[in-house]
């Protein structure tokens, strides 16, 4: 998403500053719409979620917008109001499900590849996510022995 924004801004700038002839401008504007189109697709594919509670904020990125019955790996960035240097993989549990249907996730996803980016920020992967039905889902990330999980909600539709 970030990437696509850069493309759009740099490109509009170059068009503004240009003093090319009309047909070149036309060509450029066609090119720009092409680029816009690609960036739009990029945006449609990648999904981004944000949530927080009193202790943490969590950003989740799904590299492609999920479909049914496939296994996915999502990226997570966790920021804390307190130092996170003590957090390890075994402190992170992932759960979720469909409230309306009264069931959980069909798989048991796990946190992998934890990196301490700095004192108050870690990033990790959530591997093994799968959704087997269309509809409203929630995903919970529970960190160590804190009370409230971090929850994101989304709708999967065909």
């Amino acid at each position, binding site marked *: 998403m970030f990437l696509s924004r850069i493309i759009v801004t740099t490109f509009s700038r170059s068009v503004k500053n240009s003093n090319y002839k009309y047909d070149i401008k036309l060509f450029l504007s066609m090119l720009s719409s092409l680029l816009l189109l690609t960036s739009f697709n990029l945006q449609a594919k990648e999904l981004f979620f944000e949530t927080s509670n009193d202790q943490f904020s969590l950003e989740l990125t799904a590299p492609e917008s999920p479909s049914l*019955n496939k296994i996915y790996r999502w990226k997570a960035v966790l920021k804390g109001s307190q130092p996170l240097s003590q957090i390890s993989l075994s402190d992170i549990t992932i759960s979720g499900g469909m409230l309306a249907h009264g*069931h959980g996730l*069909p*798989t*048991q996803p796990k946190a992998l590849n934890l990196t301490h980016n700095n004192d108050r920020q870690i990033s990790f992967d959530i591997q*093994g996510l799968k959704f*087997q*039905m*269309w*509809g409203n889902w929630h995903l919970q990330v529970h960190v160590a022995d804190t009370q409230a999980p971090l929850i994101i909600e989304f709708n999967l539709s065909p």
Partner: protein
Amino acid sequence: MLRIIICILVLGALGWAGFFNRQQPLSWSDNERATIASLRLADEKTLLQNVIHTGNTVWDDVAAAKLGQQLFFDNQLSKNQAVSCATCHQPSEGFADPQALSIGISTTKRHSPSLLGAAFSPWFFWDGRADSLWAQALGPLEDPAEHGANRLQLAKLIATKYKPQYQAIFGPISDFNHLASHATPLSDNPLWRNNWQRMSVTDQDAVNQVFANIGKSLAAYQSRLIPSPSRFDKFAAQLLTQGSSDILNRTEQQGLKLFISEEKGQCIRCHNGPFLTNNDFQVTGIKDPRLPLGSGRLEGITIALNSEFNCRSPYSSTQDKDTECLELDYAKSSGDELNFAFKVPTLRNISQTAPYMHNGSFDNLQQVLHFYTRAKSQYSDTDVESKRDTSTLSKQSVTHLDIEPLALASEQLIQLEAFLNTLTSPINLDDTWLKKPN
């Protein structure tokens, strides 16, 4: 008099409304269209890209499929020389069989599922105890109620009867002449087990390798069992390109609408994707009177995780287990939701594969649909009581149910059934593939 006139007018208006209603083509929302698109069979090339061929590098090899076809129909792969895969997966019966419980050497515990589109699932058997199509095939071969054979007997058969074909695909094979006639670690026959234990690790491994390759050839054959577009697929194609279609009649279209409705039919929750299954395990509460309680995915996943032929095993041809065994590595293996959960079956060619459910307990689609309107667990409280005494399963374990009673009128059940019947089509293969080869 006035009353009579009013009556006539009202009836007339109702009649008109009914008439119009009947004539208007059904309208489909964007979401409904997208859902219909997700149920369509893609073209063959796209479909083949979605085959799940965990640990099987010969899955799309024609020679392997041909060998697989020979093995599929060969009675010699059995204890009594009279059972083959085709005994219970008959091409003329949608690759299932008409018995409630399949019969091989003796009567099995479950109903034989259709093999159409089997290659698109990550899990096999009603309880998901195999994590690949090739590992699945090894089960019936050694099951005393099915083929009742043993892996050494089978490896010897391959080394004699099928030697050239096998070697062309998998390379050199030993003749196993220095070994006994029968051996397997999995048998209630003490002689066969004993023979296995007396074999060297190298010999055991060589036999296991041939055994696994039998499974991989059978999987290559079964990966080709894909249906051609059904009337539903043709309807969907026309609806999506031209905006409307009458390839399905009104009743069938109304059935489709119910099927994909999250509130009304709810079928789409589990029966989704081009094979109308999420290949997951759900609790419908269908009870198995002949089986001890506690079966289902909970048992199946435990077996799969410990299987000597699972994705993590040396017999699974994988390059990187960490990326190719995700289904096994991230499978849910505990919790109420797995208790009595069975695999959601495909509904492709469903009109050909009666009786239905894992225990074959429903003779026809009307009975299945009637069950969904009641949706009550067939496990009663007394079962819970007796189970609590004899097993470790907790009381809550039978209370999880993935379906809800549906408020459907009998007319709607007729519509749903009409829709299910539009999912039947011939297999997209030359007839020579669908019978015992010469």
